[in-house]
């Protein structure tokens, strides 16, 4: 195993299920034999604030947070929050983002518009970019609520963790009832 640490960032809005997604990734990394650390701030997150989860894995991980500008991959659950977290990414890092807009209070109240052209702005800086309609693909898998798993599937392609470990992590973290749909959602994401 190389000394290389893989730095994954997940950004979105409180209530989107980022904690569970980052837990599945951490579990898969541990099952694959890596040391893992994960960090995020959850306090006000329940009240619709921004959430950024940091997951790092490799032979031995020290800092629980991704050093500024060293993220390998940014996994965005929402467009504006993805954009906000770009400075955490290393030059040439990859972005996988869900095509979803959640309006912040100032936009809801009509004080300013939701910024446009975000996709283009991200792409211009990080050409290794994938836009996904997580909700739509999840519907094909059988449940819109599996959108995060679709995204996780897409991210998984870019990470050095074998598929069997992802499957075992899903089995452990997802309630049995929802497992089939989530497996399918993961596969569709992986193939996207």
């Amino acid at each position: 195993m190389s000394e290389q640490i893989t730095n994954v960032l997940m950004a979105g809005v409180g209530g989107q299920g980022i904690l569970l997604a980052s837990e599945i990734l951490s579990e898969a990394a541990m099952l694959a034999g890596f040391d893992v650390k994960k960090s995020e701030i959850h306090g006000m997150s329940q009240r619709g604030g921004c959430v950024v989860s940091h997951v790092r894995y490799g032979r031995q991980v020290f800092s629980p947070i991704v050093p500024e500008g060293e993220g390998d991959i940014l996994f965005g659950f929402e467009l504006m929050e993805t954009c906000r977290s770009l400075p955490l990414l290393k030059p040439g890092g990859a972005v996988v983002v869900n095509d979803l807009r959640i309006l912040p209070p100032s936009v809801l109240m009509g004080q300013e518009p939701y910024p446009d052209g975000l996709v283009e702005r991200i792409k211009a800086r990080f050409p290794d970019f994938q836009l996904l309609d997580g909700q739509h693909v999840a519907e094909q898998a059988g449940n819109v609520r599996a959108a995060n798993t679709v995204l996780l599937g897409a991210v998984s392609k870019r990470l050095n963790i074998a598929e069997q470990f992802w499957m075992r992590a899903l089995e452990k973290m997802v309630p049995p009832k929802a497992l089939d749909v989530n497996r399918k959602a993961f596969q569709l994401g992986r193939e996207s």
Partner: protein
Amino acid sequence: MKEILSGNEAIARGAFEAGCLVACAYPGTPSTEILENTIKYKEIDSSWAPNEKVALEVAIGASFGGGRALCTMKHVGVNVAADPLFTLAYTGVRGGLVLVVADDPEMHSSQNEQDSRNYSKFAKVPMLEPSDSQECKEFTRLAFELSEQYDMPVMLKSCTRISHGKSIVELEERVSGLPAPKLEKNPAKLVMLPGNARVRHPLVEESLQKLSHAGSKMAINRSELRDRSIGIITAGVSYQYVREVLPNASTLKLGMVNPLPYDLIREFAAQVEKVYVVEELDPFIELQVRAMGINAVGKEIIPLCGELTPGRLRSAFGLPQTTPVPAEKLPGRPPNMCPGCPHRGVFFALNQLKAYVTGDIGCYTLGFMPPLSAMDTCVCMGASIGMATGVTKVVADQEKKKVVAVIGDSTFLHTGINGLMDMVYNQSPATVVILDNSITAMTGRQDNPASGFTLMDAPAPAINIPLLCTSLGVKNIRVINPLDLEETKRVLAEEMERPETSVIITNKPCVLIKREGVFQKGPVYAIEDDTCTGCRACLKIGCPAIEWRPAADGGKKGKAYIDPLLCTGCDVCRQLCKFDAIGSKK
């Protein structure tokens, strides 16, 4: 067996493995999940206390009874529990007693970033500081052992990154064979009257000295010699940042930050050319190291405020930074009360009445944010009522009427009740609003003495807040439905006008309570497009379910829209619409 655990889960696990019998706490970010995890172990009696002082006193009792006891709180909780803590240092323990305190550098969810290590020195209590989840578990076990071995309570200091960070932990079995708790009288040790306390204090000083010597040999204090041109003394999460950023530097990793292992520090300093101290917040280790005559560099380069990060450490040491893409200018995303939150109407009315609102801490502190913008002070839990009394002591009669304290149910029972006693006793004309949403919502919905359930989810007697206020001597008590804006505003105006103490209690639950029969979702509301004139009146309530949709042609007249997935049917926006455009979908 290996598992990925958060620091908080690992501390709970460590308490379980250590044979802990009692865990008591008042919730507070980032410490809350420790007790939410000790409940997984049926061997531990876990409970929420009304405040941190009581929580610590319960743990002290359990220890005096002979059982191992855990008490947890956030950093500011120690301010509340400081009174018993300082004298507990003198009595010492019977069963091991571990006090976990979780700091919040950077103030992710706190009103200050006080550095709890100062308490350990001030109160003369040993303190351990883990740097990942594995250490959280191991150090918790060790803390119980040291507590009994040295007859002292032991503090375990965490922080947001440690408590909420997750890493791999090796699980072990629960220890067995601890002596069974039973009553045993020992007044010379446990009754801290001056005569006894004078005997105990020198023993405390002696134990600290012994522990400092022993600390130099403890495995948790570890000298790692690498490149000897710089030697970094560090502890806790800062150690991880040091290893990340300066992998070749020699480090002295301290697992025990009070008392410091002086012999080991001296030995380490002699083996390296230049000594640095890397620690978050105060120069706690640094000042002591310098007092030893070691010329260490610390806060000259390491920030005094906020968290450390690998990037901040890099710039402190003048190391090259990766230049990230510049931050985008984007609309902010501040937290907001939930759709249908029962607090909203009260702040809307207070804003309209131009009240001077002494605030408190809870979800309702968000009433400070626009568009509600109705909070003028916020200092610490329970402070709203005392501050209201104080303000009315100095301002002119006409202004006294404007003074309203707002406080949540949990905060009222925490320390607000004392303020209310004073307000009645000393006859302040201020108005108090107790926002009773039947839960401690801010920290993730914990039960409290008025919610009718315990931490273990067993039914419990619920304090009747109106009756409690009556018994304190409040003559004017009104219970209102905060979702009825007209009633809320009218009652507030009447009570503000009254030149006597009055208490208004709201009676609608937090919308996130999942327990059956507490919160009932109403019918979803919708805005009729043809009737909506685009007057924006409904936006003034700041409900996140309501969205302003500008006119498609870019013209002036937009319309409001309700997201049916978010609306909880609280009816408040309907009351604001003069054109009857808002209604429930039957």
